[in-house]
């Protein structure tokens, strides 16, 4: 292994990889949400299906897809590895566990909120991405989304998963900045607030789609 990979595999290096991939995924979520707002156009899915087929026809998309897949993969593998290594550092657990006043519930549950997000991701990809990949351009994606969201069980899981993703992002956003060493009296309080705002926007934004179709949106 070269010095580069050895450094990335140190405790700080592992976290830097988490923060880099995490911020990349944060960026992706914003673009993903913005594009999907076309669902609300109320034109029988014309705008949304157009958006989707335009995306599909762009030659850069398959490359970005591979990048995104790698980003998720690295983040997940490294996250689970860190969780395992970190918990193995204390074989004999405390008998009395009092959560410290200093640490938020969001920060202590990253592996759980992350794992739910992973399960969500598998179901989500199976529902839409896989169908588009296997059935090609002709598929009416809007209709697929609409009918799946009219199922209260599917939508319910979706909404819960988005809330938990919000928890993940609320800690993750500011945590990534701390990992890079960008914690400064002047701007860190702003980063923390921006992270919470971002988390709420993403959770509410994505959850609003199943809610919209559950309430009879067309």
């Amino acid at each position, binding site marked *: 292994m070269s010095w580069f990979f050895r450094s990335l595999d140190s405790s700080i290096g592992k976290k830097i990889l988490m923060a880099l991939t995490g911020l990349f995924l944060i960026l992706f979520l914003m673009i993903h949400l913005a594009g999907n707002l076309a669902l609300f156009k109320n034109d029988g899915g014309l705008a949304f299906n157009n958006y989707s087929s335009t995306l599909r026809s762009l030659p850069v998309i398959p490359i970005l897809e591979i990048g995104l897949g790698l980003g998720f993969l690295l983040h997940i593998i490294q996250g689970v590895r860190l969780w395992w290594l970190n918990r193995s550092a204390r074989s004999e657990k405390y008998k009395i566990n009092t959560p*410290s006043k200093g640490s938020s519930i969001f*920060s202590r549950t990253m592996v759980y909120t992350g794992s739910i997000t992973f399960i969500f991701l598998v179901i989500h990809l199976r529902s839409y991405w896989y169908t588009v990949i296997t059935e090609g351009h002709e598929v009416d994606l809007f209709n697929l989304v609409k009918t799946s969201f009219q199922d209260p069980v599917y939508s319910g899981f979706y909404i819960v998963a988005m809330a938990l993703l919000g928890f993940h992002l609320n800690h993750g956003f500011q945590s990534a900045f701390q990992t890079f*060493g960008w914690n400064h009296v002047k701007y860190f309080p702003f980063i923390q607030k921006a992270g919470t705002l971002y988390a709420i926007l993403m959770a509410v934004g994505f959850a609003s789609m199943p809610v919209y179709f559950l309430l009879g949106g067309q």
Partner: protein
Amino acid sequence: MSEHKLNLKLMIWKQSGPDVKGKFQEYKVSVSPDSSFLEILDDLNDSLERSNKEPVTFESDCREGICGTCGLVINGLPHGPLSRIATCQLHMRHFKDGDTVYVEPFRANTFPVIKDLMVDRSALDRIMHAGGFISINTGGVPDANEIPIPKEISSFAFDAAACIGCGACVAACKNSSAMLFVSAKVSQFALLPQGQPERYQRVEKMIKVMDEEGFGACSNTYACEAECPKGISVKNIARLNREYIKAKVKSHNLD
């Protein structure tokens, strides 16, 4: 002195050695609210010894909050329920009559239990040996104020240097990470001119030993800062991350 006494049930972790199973043992005590936590353990041991029973092993030294020896986890919190104090500075007036108080050792694989509440924290010393120092060659004594240092910088360095190496940050962390400790030690030198010659090799070596010893990584939960008796800020961990990244980019070390 008040006559008023508190009756407490102490549940104290008893473990005869590093690789033996331990368990809580119950002790009923009646204590003065003016006693410190260590004093009630002294009294308990005194009465145990008088009746030919084995005393509870725990560590303490200065008993004024500056040596960092007296690490106990009281009701799940390192150094007890109050913030910014060591166990020796915790007084019984913060407990109520009839309370059950659980006392455990600092728990981390890097801090093996020696006996009962006493743990071996020499892993922190080994991190220090790797780079937590500055080398000064012999010669004349330098003038105290020869090198100008901005007040703000010297204050940051002094805040970091307030770390007493107690290990409560490791004990409080869900990952048993020593990042707050290492960040304080790296910061106190990285900020000052005297720390510059060894700046980058210091952080590389200290993190390497920290990882080899088996401390966890930092998940930025910030529990350490809240439990640290000296209030060492997690901003030092951000600085440590910066120092490490800079060192990895700049140093000629190919390890």
